[in-house]
């Protein structure tokens, strides 16, 4: 009897230990990835990287100025399309949560979130690139925008649901229409949280490569024209990483560092905004 209890306790302790070990095991690759990105990235990063254009193939030096600007343009384009759609559909979900459409939207938004980004890329290619027969910044923005929509929709809904319903009821009691109550009372009350959601969706798409490969393609020259192919950090890092040139590998690491920093910046901003939201609710 005592023996059996001891065995059960032993097994229990063992499993508890293994679970702790699993956490440590998962932190190993995290540490390794960050270590290399920081080490290789910082030793490769220089002022040229931000200000210079790519040099011709095989020539050392140069930078990714065009790709950095390109990534920002693509993110901007995506936001321009996705934020209004995501916000308004989020408002719908929280105002009419039980409707059949709401259930369908919730479900498809979640499913859309899990669809491989490369498939979204094909879709944007067929929609924007095929009709005009050439790659364009616009196509890349569309692809990224499609990926942002479900994230913004769901976070908007979720955060609107956190706003006390008494606010809406108060507005309606004062004679406001539903749309007035939703857009001038509910939405502002949830705004910090919604901005957090937008920032997180930006962090998510800033690192996307697959949907850009055959939409915005790449461009070794300076271009801000929306109807022309445009360079992006991610595609540039990819091209450089699989190239045979030592100096390009160096720049790929630098690009990865800039990319990770950008994503980190979005996440930290999101964190700051969330904390403000918490403080707002507390007082």
């Amino acid at each position, binding site marked *: 009897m005592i023996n059996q209890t001891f065995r*059960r*306790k032993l*097994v*229990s302790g063992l*499993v*508890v230990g*293994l*679970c702790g070990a*699993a*956490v440590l095991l*998962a932190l190993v*690759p*995290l540490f*390794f*990835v960050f270590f290399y*990105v920081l080490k*290789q990235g910082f030793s490769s990063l220089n002022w040229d990287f931000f200000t210079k254009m790519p040099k011709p193939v095989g020539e050392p030096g140069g930078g990714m100025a065009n790709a950095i600007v390109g990534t920002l343009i693509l993110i901007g384009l995506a936001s321009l399309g996705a934020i209004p*759609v995501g916000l*308004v*559909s989020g*408002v*719908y979900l929280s105002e*009419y949560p039980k409707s059949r*459409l709401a259930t369908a*939207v919730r479900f*498809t938004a*979640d*499913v*859309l*979130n*899990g669809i*491989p980004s*490369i*498939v979204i890329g*094909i*879709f944007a290619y067929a*929609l924007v690139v095929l009709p005009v027969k050439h790659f364009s910044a616009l196509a890349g923005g569309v692809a990224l925008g499609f990926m942002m*929509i479900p*994230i913004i929709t*769901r976070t908007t809904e*979720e*955060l609107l649901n*956190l706003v006390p319903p008494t606010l809406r009821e108060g507005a309606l009691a004062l004679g406001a229409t539903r*749309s007035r109550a*939703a857009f001038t009372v509910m939405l502002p009350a949830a705004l910090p949280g919604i901005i*957090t959601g937008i920032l997180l969706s930006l962090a998510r798409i800033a*690192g996307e*490569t*697959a949907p850009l490969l*055959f939409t915005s393609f790449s461009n070794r020259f300076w271009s801000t024209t929306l109807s022309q192919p445009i360079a992006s950090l*991610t595609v540039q*890092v990819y091209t450089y990483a*699989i190239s045979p040139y030592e100096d390009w590998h160096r720049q790929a*690491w630098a690009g990865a560092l800039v*990319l990770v920093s950008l*994503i980190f910046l979005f*996440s930290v901003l999101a964190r700051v905004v969330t*904390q403000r939201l*918490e403080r707002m*609710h507390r007082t």
Partner: protein
Amino acid sequence: MSSAPSPRRASSDLGFRAGTGFFAALVVLLVAGIAFVLWQQSRLSIAKFGFNFWRTKTWDPVSGDFGALPFIWGTLYSSFLALLISTPIALGIAIFLSELSPRLLRTPLAFLTELLAAIPSIVYGLWGVFVLVPLVRKLEMLAPPWARRFPLFTGPPLGVGMLAAALVLAVMVIPFTSSVAREVLKAVPATQREAAYALGATRWEAIQVAMRYGRTGILGAIILGLGRAIGETMAVTMVIGNSPAITSSLFAPQYTMAAVIANEFTEAASDLYTSALIEIGLVLFAITLLINAASRFLIWSVSREVKVEAPQAVPLRASASEVS
């Protein structure tokens, strides 16, 4: 709602509902649109090859002969291996964070493990090419000659290949599975564990009770990870070797569905070639759609509260609900 709203207000409310509903319907339309466009663009290949597309293994763009079997194999095999590695680790993390961890460590550890999901695929790929692949090559060279006779370990130690791909995939899938499994365990009523403890259960036995209660949700979490693994593109493309081969060898370079699209789409010179690649995309879409739907239903059956999306380095729900 006691007095009838004025007609003007009623029509304004109706307009509001229709207007916002229109945008919401766009989300549904988007998924339907993807399905339709992919099907429409792959008609050429579907008409030419029919079901043979998925049964044959010739991939010859020059002669216009396309069979996608090696890519299906590569995708399934790499995802299976990745899940084999990631599932125990992810469940371990979920159990530790939801049941065992000291309160002080919980938030930082959850933050760190979910940070794995914030690293972009391309950065994993870069790291894979320059750090993991050389490491895997060294590991492969250590394999003694007698082990090489097993089908799992045949072929030259190249570094790039199935093993490297499975390892990268496993790392990328862990945060998804663990964060959803953690939410599922959180949704299991505390009474389940309390009852187990009251009957004299040890910690592990109580955890087993909780896991059995949430088993459908945990299965959903694992399947969600599978969906991620199947659709993962860049990191796999960079380390798997991109060679269409059907072999069980972990050392051999292989190819996946997502990788072949990423690699060859811009080079596809003929309409048939593009169409064949889009057909692969269509199937990828269908598989991930089914998998995601299945995982969602499984998780929903445990709790509708469990969020199913990319784990977030900023825990929105937790922070907001703690406050209220």
